[in-house]
């Protein structure tokens, strides 16, 4: 199990590096910081096997600019084939730079920060009204919490005790133009969410096993109860040394030289972990 999740994380990172280099686009650091979160969700947390199962768990990537990591996770799970993945950011594709629900496994088109949690709360409320066991997982960034609408949704979910709603905060400490602590400090995030009436957990967001264990441990069986938030302490650009916590990797694409270095580092990490970087062939329900 542990090796599996780490292998999935590495494969997600490798796909992110390969595809962003091929497409010549940025948002790499934001993708790398959520690789472990997506690996954990893929690794058995999300239930339901098909896109049209009404009782499936829903996953909403509210920080839509990191969609490449989601494509990579879907690819790992066999829900986005290689040919489709290779259209990322090319002309005429739905595999675009932000999630497009025209693509089957994408639940919600996002890209404007601060909207995913409201919609997720609506879906969670709908599941309760329908008597459905499905749960809703929404992945936000820490800087996304600058948006007031996030807190409107937070108030609503707590007031209506949407225990089937889980927010995951990718707390990587970076935003487009600087450190979150310099731009608009949202810390202490756990205390703020607790003050809004949520069941709050904090976890090492670079440890997919810890993330999976925490997400599995949440009491989401009842659709009434405190909504849950997992503050995942992540590292922006995680896994590529020169990107880690470096703000310009929010936008910059890689040169060929830096691309080679990134791949080499991921290969080394894979070898160190005794993991193969080959596709996993997993049949789990990815996000």
């Amino acid at each position, binding site marked *: 199990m542990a090796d599996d999740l780490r292998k999935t994380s590495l494969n997600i990172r490798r796909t992110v590096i390969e595809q962003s280099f091929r497409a010549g686009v940025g948002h790499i650091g934001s993708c790398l910081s959520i690789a472990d979160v997506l690996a954990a969700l893929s690794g058995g947390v999300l239930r339901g096997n098909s896109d049209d199962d009404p009782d499936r768990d829903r996953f909403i990537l509210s920080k839509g600019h990191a969609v490449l990591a989601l494509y990579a996770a879907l690819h790992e799970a066999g829900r986005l084939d290689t040919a489709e993945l290779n259209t990322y950011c090319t002309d005429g594709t739905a595999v675009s730079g932000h999630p497009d*629900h025209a693509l089957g496994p994408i*639940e*919600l*088109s*996002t*890209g*404007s920060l601060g*909207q995913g*949690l*409201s*919609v*997720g*709360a*609506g*879906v*969670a*409320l*709908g*599941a309760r*009204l*329908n008597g*459905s066991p499905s749960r809703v997982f929404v992945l936000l960034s820490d800087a996304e919490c600058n948006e*007031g*609408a996030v807190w*409107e*949704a937070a*108030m*609503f979910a707590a*007031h*209506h005790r949407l225990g089937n709603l889980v927010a995951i905060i990718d707390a990587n400490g970076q935003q487009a133009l600087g450190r979150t602590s310099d731009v608009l400090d949202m810390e202490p995030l756990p205390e703020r969410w607790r003050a809004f009436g949520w069941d709050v957990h904090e976890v090492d967001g670079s440890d997919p096993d810890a993330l999976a264990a925490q997400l599995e441990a949440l009491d989401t069986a009842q659709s009434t109860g405190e909504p849950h938030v997992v503050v995942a302490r992540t590292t922006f650009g995680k896994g590529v040394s020169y990107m880690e916590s470096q703000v310009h990797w929010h936008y910059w694409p890689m040169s060929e030289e830096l691309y080679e270095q990134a791949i080499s580092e991921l290969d080394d990490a894979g070898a160190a972990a005794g993991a193969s970087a080959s596709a996993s062939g997993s049949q789990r329900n990815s996000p």
Partner: protein
Amino acid sequence: MRRAFIDSLLELAAHDDSIVLLTGDLGYTVVEPFLECHPDRFFNIGVAEQNMLGIATGLAQSGYTPFAYSIATFASMRGYEFIRNGPVLHELPVRIVGVGDGFDYGPNGPTHYPLEDIGLMRLQPGLGVVAPADPEQTRAAMEALAGHPGPTYIKLGKGAGTVPGLDGRFRLGRAELIGDGDDVAILACGGMVGAAVEAKSLLAAEGLGATVAVTASVSPAPLEDLAELLGRVPLAIALEAHYVTGGLGSLACEVVAERGLDCRVIRQGVRVVPRGESGSMQHMWERHDLTASAVVDAAVSVLNSSR
């Protein structure tokens, strides 16, 4: 209008379990009957219009038909991007209900005057825009929208009077005509239809024949009806308690220009931001030339000068 709306909603909800009513903490003495009949399908979201539209989007994704209710300015503008990226982008049956015609909120001042909502909503492809003229047309519109798969903005004026000659007619994508005069067409929707019909009578006394096009179905726009009408009159006047950009006057200009029609268009709407002056609806209409006599003056001036 609001009473007709809630009565219709109750009738529809009686045999449609998917209907849910959301409010941004507004609708005192309007929404209560729904709460009494369907407490499990009523949610006061609080003073949070963005979230109301996000919740509505999520509920619609879960198979519901949410009606999201607030004052028109707040319903249409505070969460505009939620409307765009939610029900419009995802083609979901969310009904956004905005209360108040242009100057309905009279002494409450400019923050409460929706003078651009029709234009803003009309911009979004696939978003229905419906502005009924009276309670009877409101009921007909609610019935016509039942089961409509796309999102819709419904603008409800606060008036309660019946427009003579309209007889509660409403068809999505059609204009409902009152009269058949060939000298001037008067386009109006919502709370301005009454003045438009009054102008038609005054013009008759001047020897001018008018046709009122009640354009309550702003989107889908009644393009064929308008093309036919504007193709047979030399002058069209769009009377609207709305900024002149983006509303019915703009729609008329689009039809005339795109169809190459020989018809002059006057946009009899609001041309300046109403700052520094509020007052009763009637007062504001007069200040902005939104009256039957202003329509008559404009029509007589144009038609006489071209004779």
